[in-house]
């Protein structure tokens, strides 16, 4: 019993652990985020707020404390499930309409989501919304369509990334909107990071107001006091037509063109001071980090060594300086993976540089600090970013103990039991065949010679088989007996004997004229014979007919006459 109790207890504990893991996994995987259409409102205005649940299946609406200056009204729920590369992701969105009731700055959230199963509630982030006192009064065309354009800064350094914010607000129904006259001179679009767009509606006493905004990143390429003409927005405004209605009315509604011009844009850009020799070319406030995937490794195994650089500047073309030789390890350079986006109106770029270390000896391998010199716009000077190195504790390799992955350019697997001597070429061999016969020249012929008996015997067997089959086929068809053979095997019964004599003679006649016995025309055949033979045969045939069919007695010499006639036909 004791022997059974221990594994049972262990199984129960394992089951409980697995159960807890199963229950906890969805909660750990689920993520809840509050997304607000706009964080700036006036008293009386309303806008949308979403509580988005990813990777979980909530059993009820989110629980969220709403501050006194706001009201929140649930307006609907959306959900979707997508499967990408075999991985399923679930997405549930709760939509609320937030209305500003009182001036002030308020914090919304966290929203709490119940995923059921007795799991703890999952909390979201918090968002801040600012409510202004004076509600806007829209009157006239200008108020019905307003545009905004501005850079995220008024002063910059040459090479810095700035973002241009453009937006329009309208209470009119639009069929299209297009910006033109956007600044392009003195600016360069970074290779990484596309413009970001956002669109939302605010509801107030004057009705719905649509806002469409866009942030575009630009690298400032020149210095000085830069000025640009104001950009303009061209829109197609739907003209209200009281006569239009019905289903087709919306297809044929009239529009009129309207153009609204923004404000002139400017930037005061300072040139960079003379750079140090090791300047990386990056302008921005960056952070440098590096990491290895494990502080312990075995000789011959691979260790990922990753360096991250992130900040608000462009990382286009950035390369880490080649890694210095590391005592006790080989370094294989990997690729750089840049990415960028505009987030909350600011440009954020990251570059990930991957390298691989393969320890070649036992002991400590010191990975050096990473250093990159950049220009910091906030400090107005060149700064050296440093990411501390690490120490790798390398143990002797054991066959099968590690998953050896070779990054050698020639694709050969590094030996897992490599040791310190592996830094050297192995010594010359002094045993073994120093030279060889050029087998590659003679082996194909030798293979052919070796194959010859099998192929010849195979051909022989096939031929023999074919002949046997042929003989078998021939034997299966019954050969017709010759007239002489028929005469030699006459039956003893008198009637059958007469029939056999008749058949033998007619067969001999048929063969003589070259037809089958069935197709024999006796008179025609006799006409082809010489007169003597024809007379002999005709005489014998008549005797046979008389005997067989007229009841005349058989002449005593009938059989001899038949034999003579057959012989005559054969000789002829």
């Amino acid at each position, binding site marked *: 019993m004791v022997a059974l109790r221990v594994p049972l207890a262990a199984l129960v504990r394992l089951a409980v652990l697995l159960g807890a893991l199963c229950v906890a996994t969805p909660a750990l995987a689920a993520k809840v985020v509050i997304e607000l259409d706009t964080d700036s409102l006036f008293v009386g205005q309303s806008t949308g707020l979403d509580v988005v649940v990813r990777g979980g299946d909530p059993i009820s609406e989110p629980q969220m404390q709403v501050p006194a200056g706001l009201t929140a009204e649930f307006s609907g729920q959306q959900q979707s499930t997508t499967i990408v590369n075999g991985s399923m992701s679930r997405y549930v969105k709760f939509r609320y309409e937030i209305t500003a009731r009182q001036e002030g700055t308020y914090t919304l959230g966290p929203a709490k989501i119940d995923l059921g199963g007795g799991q703890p509630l999952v909390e979201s982030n918090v968002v801040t919304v600012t409510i202004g006192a004076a509600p806007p009064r829209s009157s006239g065309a200008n108020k019905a369509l307003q545009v905004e354009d501005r850079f995220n800064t008024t002063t910059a350094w040459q090479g810095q990334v700035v973002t241009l914010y453009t937006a329009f607000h309208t209470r009119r129904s639009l069929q299209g909107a297009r910006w033109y006259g956007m600044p392009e001179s003195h600016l360069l679009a970074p290779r990484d990071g596309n413009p970001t767009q956002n669109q939302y509606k605010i509801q107030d006493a004057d009705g719905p107001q649509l806002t469409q905004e866009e942030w575009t990143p630009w690298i400032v390429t020149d210095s000085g006091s830069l000025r640009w003409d104001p950009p303009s927005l061209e829109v197609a405004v739907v003209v209200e037509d009281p006569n239009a209605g019905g289903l087709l009315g919306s297809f044929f509604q009239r529009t009129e063109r309207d153009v609204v011009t923004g404000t002139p844009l400017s930037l005061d850009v300072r040139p960079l001071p003379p750079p140090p020799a090791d300047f990386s070319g990056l302008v921005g406030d960056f952070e440098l980090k590096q990491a290895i995937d494990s502080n312990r490794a075995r000789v011959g195994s691979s260790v990922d060594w990753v360096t991250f650089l992130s900040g608000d500047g462009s990382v286009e073309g950035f390369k880490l300086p*080649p890694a210095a030789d590391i005592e006790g390890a*080989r370094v294989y*350079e990997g690729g750089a993976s840049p990415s960028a986006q505009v987030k909350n109106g600011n440009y954020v770029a990251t570059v990930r540089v991957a390298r691989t270390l393969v320890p070649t000896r036992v002991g400590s391998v010191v990975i050096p600090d990473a250093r990159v010199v950049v220009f910091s716009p906030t400090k107005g000077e060149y700064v050296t970013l440093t990411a501390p190195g690490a120490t790798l504790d390398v143990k002797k390799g054991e066959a099968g103990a590690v998953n050896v992955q*070779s990054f*050698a*350019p*020639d*694709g*050969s*697997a*590094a*030996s897992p039991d*490599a040791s310190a001597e*592996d*830094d*050297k*070429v*192995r*010594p*010359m*061999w*002094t*045993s*073994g*065949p*120093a*030279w*060889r*016969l*050029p*087998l*590659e*020249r003679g*082996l*194909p012929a*030798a*293979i052919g010679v*070796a*194959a*010859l*008996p*099998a*192929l010849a*015997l*195979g051909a*022989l*067997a096939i031929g023999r088989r074919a002949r046997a089959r042929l003989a078998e086929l021939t034997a299966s068809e019954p050969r017709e007996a010759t007239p002489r053979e028929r005469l030699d095997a006459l039956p003893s019964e008198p009637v059958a004997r007469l029939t056999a004599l008749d058949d033998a003679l007619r067969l001999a006649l048929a063969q003589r004229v070259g037809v089958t016995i069935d197709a024999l025309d006796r008179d025609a055949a006799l006409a082809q014979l010489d007169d003597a033979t024809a007379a002999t045969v005709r005489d014998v045939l008549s005797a046979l007919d008389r005997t067989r069919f007229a009841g005349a007695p058989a002449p005593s010499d009938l059989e001899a006459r038949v034999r003579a006639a057959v012989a005559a036909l054969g000789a002829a």
Partner: protein
Amino acid sequence: MSGRATALKAAVAVGALLAVVWASALPGQGSLQIAADAASAAKWDDANAALVPPSPAVRSAVNLRDDGVLHELRGDHSGAIASWRAAHLLRPRDPDLIHDLTLVRGKLEKGVPDPVAPPRAWMEVLSPIEVGLAALGAWIVASVLAWRAHRGTTDARVAVAAALIATGIAAPAVDGLWLLQSTTVGVVRREVSVREVPDPHAAEHHTLPEGAEVRVLSTSGDFLLIEDGRGRRGWAVAASLALPPP
């Protein structure tokens, strides 16, 4: 005669053949020691001379490997790689060769393109000569079985199956043996311009850094038509490439 006896006879035949092949190379063993001794005394010419095979024999994998070590000892990485690649075709699983190739390629400048792959993927693990000998043995067995089937002491189906298996081995073997004769891997000694035609004034298609491994496809005067690991073809001056010893 039982099937076991037939298999035994076939094995003896194949073993005898291998023994003949092995014995044919024994006379060269002493030269390896001579070459090693000369190398340790830095007498490179003597070491090289000791490794030159008598006609009609050719260099074995052992010989080619030692030739590569001699190059490496003199700091000629490209020459070492060229000899080791040739040896690798004969002994693809040899751990010393794999180690040395990995080590020396690791010493090359960054950005050297990947080496050209063997002409057939299976040559990464098997030598064409090994496969050829296997095909020879398989055909000997198939012939014996065919003879026995002819005599009526073995089922003909067994002989047919043996012949099919032998054919399956012989087809890649003959292909591989032909490729072994026609494949030459060269290694760039110093950065070289690869041109569109074999003319020193022709347009440069691309350049290859020291240590880049290429397959030599044909020759034209002082130029070689080469193909690198990325499949790029062009003409390069023959003197700029290290080739395995003849």
